């Protein structure tokens, strides 16, 4: 991308709401590509993991048996792009029996009320 695009000066709060499990569909993977690009555009990037989206960052993904690309290492690379605002909804974890220690990246675990307020404060919300 050109420098002019990046330096328009406008910074918006972007949120990617991840509600879908990985591998069954491609949304989780292609959302990540959007996330990386928005960081390159110097936007204020937020990722929310709610509902089945919390499965995206479950530790220990091994796709050899399905011969699909294991894209989960990308989540660990996000902080290299200064993408550090990752929020996981506590209720979504609890419903699925997932503990904080099962997650592969550092995240902020917030409750549903806090997630509601956070989403409500965004300028642009994207979902896949």
């Amino acid at each position: 991308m050109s420098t002019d695009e990046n330096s328009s000066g406008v910074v918006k709060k972007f949120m990617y709401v991840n509600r879908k499990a990985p591998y069954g569909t491609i949304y989780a993977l292609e959302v990540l590509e959007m996330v990386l690009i928005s960081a390159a555009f110097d936007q204020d990037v937020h990722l929310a993991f709610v509902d089945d989206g919390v499965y995206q960052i479950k530790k220990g993904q091994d796709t050899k048996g399905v011969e699909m690309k294991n894209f989960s290492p990308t989540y660990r690379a996000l902080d290299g792009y200064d993408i550090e605002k990752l929020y996981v909804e506590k209720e979504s974890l609890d419903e699925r029996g997932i503990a904080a220690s099962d997650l592969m990246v550092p995240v902020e675990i917030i409750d549903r009320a806090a997630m509601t307020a956070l989403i409500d404060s965004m300028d642009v919300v994207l979902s896949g």
Partner: protein
Amino acid sequence: MLHTVNKSPFERNALDACLTRAAKGSAILLYEDAVYAATKGTNVASRVSQATQAFKVFVLGPDLRARGFDEAQVLDGITVIGYDEFVDLTVEHGTVNAWL
């Protein structure tokens, strides 16, 4: 904020996902297969009616009619709109959040 839902409440969790995470006072538009949530007599009708207390709920008329329903079959408290008013809603309510 305007929240949009386009999936049947019987098939997917999108409506629930929206209703449990939309801030009070938000607008919610039901369109495509989500229009079924706006109809009378279903087993989600009481939940949707309750939602009209906390949110401004709209349903897209063209999608409703495509599926064989008309205004008379829509729950009280839900406003039937067209594409023009869909555009107006996005103008009036700021950020749009599609619960896909």
